Structures are given as C-alpha cells and as structure tokens.
C-alpha cells in the first residue's frame, strides 16, 4: 500500500474544518467584542438550505454543566379529551408562560404520552415553580371609544391595550372558565381554517349579548372586534360577522391551519387541562455547573496528556502518530457535537471518555500487531500493512457491538441514556475513521521516510541475522 494523496488531503480538510468549528466561538467572541467566558450572545446560525440543516454552532451544555433547573412534569386527572391532547395544551401554556417570563433559552417539550420536560437555564427551583405555578387566565374584551385607565394598563400589556388610538379595551365578563371546548375547524364555503369554541350556558348568554351588540358596528371599526387576552397578552383580535347565540362560535380571521390550531390550544388552555404535578426536579447552581465543566475539561486534558506520554514511551514513533491521530479525533468529535447540537451532559462526557479509550484501543491493537510483524522479520511497509489488516476484524467486531448497544440505548432509552448513547456512538464512529484512515496514512508516510526506518523507533529489536 502507498500513501494516498487524496485520502491525506481529505484528512487535512476535515481536520482544519473541525478545528475551525471548534475555535469558531472564540473567534466570534473576539470579533464581536464579547468576553471570552460567560454566555455567548447572538450566535450566528449555519444554514445549509438544500439539506434543511440549520444549527447554531456552539457546544450545547446540559443543565448539569450550565446550571439551572430541570423539571419533569406529569399530567394526571385529565378533564376532557385524551391525555396526549392535554399534554399538548399544557406544553403550549407552559411555553407561553416561560417565554413571557423572559427565559429565552428555555426548553419545553413533550416526553412520552403524559410527561413534559422543562429546562430553565440560570433559574433556581423556587423561581421555576413560581413560573410554572402561575395560572393562565383567558379573558374576552371589547373595544370602546376612550383611553385605557391605569388599572386596565396594569391588568393588560400596555402595548396591546393601546392598539387602537382613541379606543380602550373593556372587559365583557367572559373568561376562560366559560369555554368548555375549542377546536380547529374549516369554513365549509371558503375552505379556510377557523376555530370553533363552545360555551357554558352562562358564557353563551354573555357571548350572545356581546356579539349582538358588536355586529351593529361596521367591519373595520375596532368596536366590531372581539379581543381575546391570555394573561396580559392580546392573542386574537377578530371581526364579529354575525350574532352568535347557539352555544358555540366560530372565530375567523385569516388563519393558517397552524395558527388556528394554536389558537384552539390557547383557548382550551385558559383553563388547565388537568392536574400537573412535578415528577422530578433538579437544580444545579450556576457555579457548580461551571466547575463541573472546568474539572471535566481538566481531567480530559490531563488524561489525554498521560495517554500521549504513555503511547510515546511505549510505542515510540507510532505512539507519536497515534497521538496526532488522537488529537485530530478529539477535534472532529467536538466539532460534530457542535454541528449537530448534541447536548453535553455528565452522562455524555462519560460516553466521550469511553470513546477516547476505544480510539486509543484501535491504535494499540494495530501497533501490537505491527510489532509482531516486525519481530517476524517483515519489512516496515509490509508489517504496517499487515498490522492494520490483521487488527481490523477485532476493531470492527468490538466497535459494531458497541454501536449495537448505542443503538438500543438511543432508540429506547430515557433522555439521560440517549445523551450517553449519542456521544458514545459519535466517538466510536470517528475513532474508526481515526484509527483506520488517519493512523494508517501517517504510518505509510513514515514507511517512506529513510530516517524513520530504524526498528528501534518502533520498540523492536532487529531480528538476529540468521546463522549462515
């Protein structure tokens, strides 16, 4: 086998690209005059349109490394509909509450059929409970000539309350407790999406009187409109086309299917869909998270240094090759975590450390074989080729069985286990590339260099000359 220039070029390109991605955050911070530590602001997003790929390039740290509160909520005692429906409604409510509280980096997502995960970076458990415990309140208002008074401005978001100059919002007395159900529907004549809501008898009486009064105003006049507020925010400002006394109403107003669905969810969520309890909550102090990161990085660097030292002393020249391959490996793995937004947690770090071990192992396997072949008296080039060739089945089978484990853990495991599986799988994948392609190419370069041909450089005594 010869040195393959194209492969070498590929390795170089990948390594440089990986280093660029790894160092990108620092370059970006310097370029935008941001401090080198602490949260980074306005990270640009990498867009590859035709692949549908869009990702902010920085290490996504899990809450255990970043500090903050992780909550797992459970929905029980659903009043109407399915538990999944209730879960979606609850996700919408919580998302809105969290966002209106100004926690931009928060994550709210459904988990399983009846769970919701909420992650609030930089928030302690007490604050988190207050945010989540707030009740969401739906109210319907009308617009009347005048200016909003101080108490209205306190009750509603001032920007929304002053939407129409010269008009003020007046509470109709209709609130979320009077809506029994809301769902997305379709206008039979125009085929456009709209939202159907059902009222309780009391709600129906009030709504009937309210709409009868509103249709007397021409369309385009704010007094023709029906304003729906949730908590302090105006979520819908729709025209009233006819009086509505049938116990249900249809809200039209240029909806897309998605926005109609969203409104239906919001209307339903004026009253919580069921009982939401905290199944688990973890709070990690911000400094504690940061010191965990620092310690892990320190341990990683220290461990890597010892590994490199050991490889150099034990395997000599090939050890140097392996060390370079290992550094390239670490750079590539880190870049992949950044590119694909893999969230790094303690469990993920464990997976990564294990994969370093496996990356080293592939090299150790090759070098042990290389030594054997050299001791058997083969030439350097032939020994290198045979070393890689004979080490391959062991590397393949051990890594495939690890990948099988990762696969099972990723597809069936809890979130914590998923994080572990994905970092380990990335690590194993990259380490195969590193061991087989990178190390092999570097070894071939060595075989071509005259000063690198002394067997002592490989920790092997030259075979004794055969007796004549």
């Amino acid at each position, binding site marked *: 086998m010869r040195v393959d220039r194209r492969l070498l070029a590929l390795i170089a390109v990948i390594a440089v690209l990986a280093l660029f991605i790894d160092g990108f955050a620092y370059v970006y911070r310097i370029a935008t005059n941001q401090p080198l530590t602490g949260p980074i602001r306005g990270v640009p997003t990498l867009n590859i349109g035709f692949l549908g790929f869009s990702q902010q390039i920085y290490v996504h740290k899990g809450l255990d490394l970043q500090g903050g509160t992780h909550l797992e909520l459970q929905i029980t005692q659903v009043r109407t509909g399915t538990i999944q429906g209730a879960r979606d409604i609850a996700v919408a409510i919580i998302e809105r509450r969290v966002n209106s509280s100004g926690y931009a980096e928060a994550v709210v997502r459904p988990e399983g059929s009846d769970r919701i995960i909420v992650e609030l970076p930089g928030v302690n458990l007490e604050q988190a409970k207050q945010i989540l415990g707030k009740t969401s309140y739906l109210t319907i208002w009308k617009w009347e000539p005048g200016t909003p008074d101080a108490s209205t401005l306190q009750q509603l978001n001032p920007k929304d309350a002053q939407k129409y100059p010269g008009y003020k919002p007046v509470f109709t007395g209709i609130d979320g407790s009077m809506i029994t159900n809301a769902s997305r529907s379709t206008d039979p004549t125009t085929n456009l999406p709209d939202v159907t809501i059902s009222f309780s008898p009391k709600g129906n009486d009030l709504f009937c009187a309210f709409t009868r009064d509103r249709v007397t105003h021409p369309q385009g006049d704010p007094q023709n409109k029906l304003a729906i507020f949730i908590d302090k925010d105006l979520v819908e400002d729709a025209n009233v086309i006819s009086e509505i006394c049938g116990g249900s109403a249809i809200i039209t107003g240029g909806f897309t299917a998605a926005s109609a669905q969203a409104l239906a969810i919001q209307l339903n969520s004026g009253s919580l869909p069921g009982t939401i309890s905290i199944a688990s*909550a973890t709070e990690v102090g911000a400094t504690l998270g940061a010191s965990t990161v620092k310690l892990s990085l320190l341990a990683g660097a220290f461990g890597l240094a010892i590994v490199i030292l050991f490889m150099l002393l034990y395997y000599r020249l090939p050890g140097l090759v392996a060390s370079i391959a290992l550094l390239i490996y670490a750079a590539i793995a880190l870049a992949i975590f950044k590119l694909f937004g893999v969230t790094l947690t303690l469990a993920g770090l464990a997976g990564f450390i294990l994969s370093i071990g496996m990356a080293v192992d592939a090299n150790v396997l090759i070098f042990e074989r290389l030594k054997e072949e050299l001791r058997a008296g083969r030439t350097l080039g032939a020994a290198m080729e045979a070393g890689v060739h004979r080490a391959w089945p062991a590397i393949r089978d051990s890594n495939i069985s690890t990948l099988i484990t990762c696969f099972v853990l990723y597809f069936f495991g809890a979130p914590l286990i998923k994080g572990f599986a994905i970092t380990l799988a990335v690590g194993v994948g990259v380490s195969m590339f590193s061991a087989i392609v990178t190390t092999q190419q570097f070894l071939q370069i060595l075989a071509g260099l005259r000063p690198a041909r002394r067997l002592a450089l490989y920790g092997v005594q030259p075979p004794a000359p055969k007796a004549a």
Partner: protein
Amino acid sequence: MNIVGRRNLYFLLSLAIILPGIISMAFLGFRLGIDFAGGDQYNLTFRQPVQATAVQKEMDTFSVEATVQQAGSNRVLITTRPLSLKEDTAIRNDLAAKFNVDFSQSSIAEVGPTIARELVVGAGGLILIASILIVIYLSIRFNYKFALAAILALLHDVFVLTGIWSILGKVFNSPLGEINTLFVTAALTVIGFSVHDTIVIFDRIRENLRQASRLSFEQNVNLSIIQSLARSLNTSMTVIFVLVALFLISPQNIKGFTLALLIGIVSGTYSSIFNASPLLVVWRRLDPR
C-alpha cells in the same frame, strides 16, 4: 504464563468478590438515591466549615424526616421527604440565614418516586435487549459459545459493580454507594467496555484457531490471551489514567459516578482475560464438539 490452567483460581477470585455483593444485595438491598425513594435532596456548599450535626439539629426543627451527612469540611448532603414549595422556601431561608450557604455552589434535586424506577427498570430491559442483539451478532461472527461467554463476562462485571455498590452504600453507609441515574449511566458504560474488551481477545482466539497448529484448544486459548495481554493492559491503563484523574478532582456530586466507572473498567479488564476465555475452555471440556 498459564492463565487457562489456573482458571479455577481466577473463577474463585471472581466469586470471592461477587458473593459478598450478592449477599449484601439480597439482604440489605441498595442505598437508593432520591431518584428512587422520592424526596428532596440538598447538596449544599457553605462559605465556611460546617458540622453536619449542627445542620441536623436545625433541620429537625422542620420535622421533614431530614438526614444530614457530612460531605466535605464545608459541604453537607441533606435528604428529606418530598417538600412543598412553602417548606422548601422556609428551609432555604433558614439555612441561608444561619449557616451562610453558597447557593451558587449547591445543587438541589426533587424527585417523585416513579421516574427513577422507570429509568432503572428501563435500563435493565435495555441491557437485556442489547445483550440479545450482541449475542446474535457474535454468533454470526464467532459462534454461540463465544457469544454466551462474552455475555457471562458482561454479567460478571454488572454483578461486581452492583454488589460493591450495595456493600458501599449499606455496609459502609457511604453516600458514594448511592444508586441514582448517574450510576445507571456508569453501569451502561461498563457494559459497553466489557464486551469490547472481550471481543478483542476472542478475535485472537478465532485467528489462532484458523491456523493449522499442533496446539490443543486449551493451549490455543492461553496463547491468545498472552498474545493480547499487552494490548488489554495498555488499553485499560489508558482509560484508567483518565478515570483516576477524573475521580481525584471530580466534585462530590459525581465522585460516585467516576468511582463506578473505575471499578467497572477494572472488572471488565479482569473478566475478559481471566473469565471469558477460560470459560470457553470449560465449555469445550464439557461439550467437546
């Protein structure tokens, strides 16, 4: 060096480590983290040295079934029954006022009892599925005897780890020996490593068996172990270097995690050399086909 010949000695050594663990697991069970029992856990750091007994006295006034343990000169670990928001706030304010707690250096967890049970039962199921798939894969690449020996070595490592954890948590009453979600992760890591390590030696046996030689099966296995010994030890040493570094400097809340990894990797290395391959020989004697 005759490793296979002394296999009974090595099996005994494994048993000597596993048996106390199994007895401890059977009679004492585990020290369950709050992930399992449900409750609140405060991992508090103070700005000055503090005595666990003093904190315990203070916590007793709240009657929340609190146990306080020293976790360093200025750290304590408090476990309580599940608390309401009001109780939680009262305790925090009280401790902050009386003991100078540094909340930015602390972690607090609150767990309902269902979650962790699901995680562990789930993890057990996952280990089972993964094991079956690995057995299938190894049966194709090697044969079913190799596959089962690899899985037995894996179970060995799981029992060593969980047994030591039971003893650590229940007999020595150390917070390190707590079963929590991080321990589950560590156990999974060990399983990955164990199979990996075993396969490398099996590969050597497979290769040596293919070559025509006058060696018996037993001699062949022993030769393969010796031939891959340098590699086995070197690889394990590198991982152990990283883990020892991690263990020494890791903060209290993840010390148990790194210790579990360390024990598991050492056990994994031992079982691949001294258990998995000699098992093949035992099997061959019982069933010489």
